[in-house]
């Protein structure tokens, strides 16, 4: 297995405050990895640092190329799709325009139409609403739209920031099922940040646990799920 993303000694800062203290981890190509941690542990910051949306130092390599100094849009153009916390929906545009925007940096314009159709297959609810203003969608629908928009990039790597946030449990299950499918069928490497540790560990094959800006545990998702400390702190049994 080849390494897709390699992060070494990542430190990130908000003004004077240091949020990450030398984080190192790597993602294998085709893997589905989850990053677990409590509030304020630095999960979101880690994702933001990969896309250069926060001031950071350290080495970030994507498919062997250093990307630490690239601007956000140029990181994305390499094929790294980022579904941000809060979904980042373009609320005043239609569902279809949101999907178009997902593919806006792609050079192959012809395939966009068929990709949109494919998204409607993954997320049938979006098809029913394609001329509707995205802001009028429910939270769950918006999260589906955000994932679909990210996939429109035809990404090699997808970063998801708490996709379960604020959604009903049934919808979360549905969403995670689709994520698994995308990971297997479309060969998209996925890094998902979650507070819902149980679901995330069921879904993922690799896991990292992060505490106050440092990785404290890493390994196979099953092993992590069986780890006593993790069970106590994150799974609650």
């Amino acid at each position, binding site marked *: 297995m080849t390494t897709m993303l390699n992060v070494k000694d990542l430190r990130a800062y908000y003004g004077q405050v240091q*949020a990450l203290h030398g984080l190192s981890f790597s993602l294998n190509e085709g893997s589905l990895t989850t990053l677990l941690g409590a509030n304020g542990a630095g999960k979101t910051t880690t994702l933001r640092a990969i896309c250069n949306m926060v001031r950071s130092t350290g080495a970030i390599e994507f498919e062997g190329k250093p990307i630490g100094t690239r601007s956000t849009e140029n990181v994305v153009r390499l094929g790294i799709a980022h579904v941000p916390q809060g979904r980042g929906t373009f609320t005043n545009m239609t569902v279809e325009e949101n999907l178009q925007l997902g593919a806006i940096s792609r050079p192959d314009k012809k395939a966009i139409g068929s990709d949109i159709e494919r998204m409607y297959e993954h997320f049938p609810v979006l098809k029913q609403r394609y001329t509707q203003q995205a802001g009028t969608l429910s939270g769950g629908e918006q999260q589906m739209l955000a994932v679909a928009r990210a996939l429109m990039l035809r990404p090699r790597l997808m970063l998801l920031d708490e996709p379960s946030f604020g959604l009903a449990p049934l919808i979360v299950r549905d969403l995670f099922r689709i994520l698994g499918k995308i990971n297997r069928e479309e060969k998209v490497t996925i890094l998902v940040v979650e507070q819902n540790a149980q679901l995330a560990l069921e879904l993922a094959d690799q896991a990292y646990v992060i505490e106050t800006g440092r990785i404290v545990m890493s390994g196979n998702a099953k092993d992590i799920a069986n780890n006593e400390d993790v069970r106590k702190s994150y799974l609650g049994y």
Partner: protein
Amino acid sequence: MSAAEEIVTEAPAVEAVPKRAMTLGYGTSLVVLAALILIPLFVKNFIIFQMTMLLIYALAVMALNILTGGSGQFSLGQSAFYAVGAYTSAILMEHAGMNYALTLPIAGIVCFGFGFLFGQPALRLSGVYLALATFALATAMPQLLKLGYFEHWTGGVQGLVVTKPDAPFGLPMSQDMWLYYFTLAVSIGIYLASVNLLRSRSGRAFMAIRDNEIAASAMGVDVALYKTLAFGVSAGITGVAGGLGAIAVQFVAPDGYTIQLAISLFLGMVVGGVGWLPGSIVGSAFIIFVPNIAEGISKGLSGAVFGVLLFLVIFLVPHGARQIAIIAQQLAAKFKKN
């Protein structure tokens, strides 16, 4: 997620300036005060006059700063309040024969009322809309002052000539110098009152509204009252400045209070640093002296030179004089450590 991460969300239009950062420390204040007291003893009358204007505009800039930096509302209409203050003083002095010093509080009260009333419809507006509304006020004011109905009082287009007061109690002082110290005393009084206002409950209410209006109202701040109050206070101080200005220039006329004055005051606030009261005097110096400097560099291109100088200032210190003060403070702290 965590508190640290919330910092990166979109910045509000007006930066949140903590209230302690809005003022100067004691030591620096005393040095500035000493300079303001001593310099006039050694310079010519014309320069004393310019220093008087410096203080007057500083007051007007500070008034805008309380409105914008304090409560987050934006105004391009300060020239209108300034004009009302100036005319109130001038009319009371020339038509009613009132003592100049007594006209100032009246000018302040009249403008406070005017600003408070104007603040009512302005409540519904924010950002560019409020800018346009206040702008309309500023463009209307000179026209209103010219109107035939008020000509008996305002002197119409001609305006009014105001008598310059002599120093009282037979003090051996030129008129200019007396007026300077009088203005200085008034300015210090208003500055101290403003600092106290911003440190008080009302000041906290202003700043809460500036930083997050909905959260402020959720905490029980009467948003409508405090927003109009901020307009009133700002207008009142501007009115006093206008009254002082009328006395210093010895003349009021509609064309002295055009939108250009409002724009100048706005620039003064930006250059001084939005939300930093002591910066007002730096901003005032900028709008008084830089046009003259520009004229000195090139008569034909004075506007362009002014623009270039303004760009230089905002490139070097986008946060205005406040930024210089902060840098100086950090340097001083470093120096102490070593």
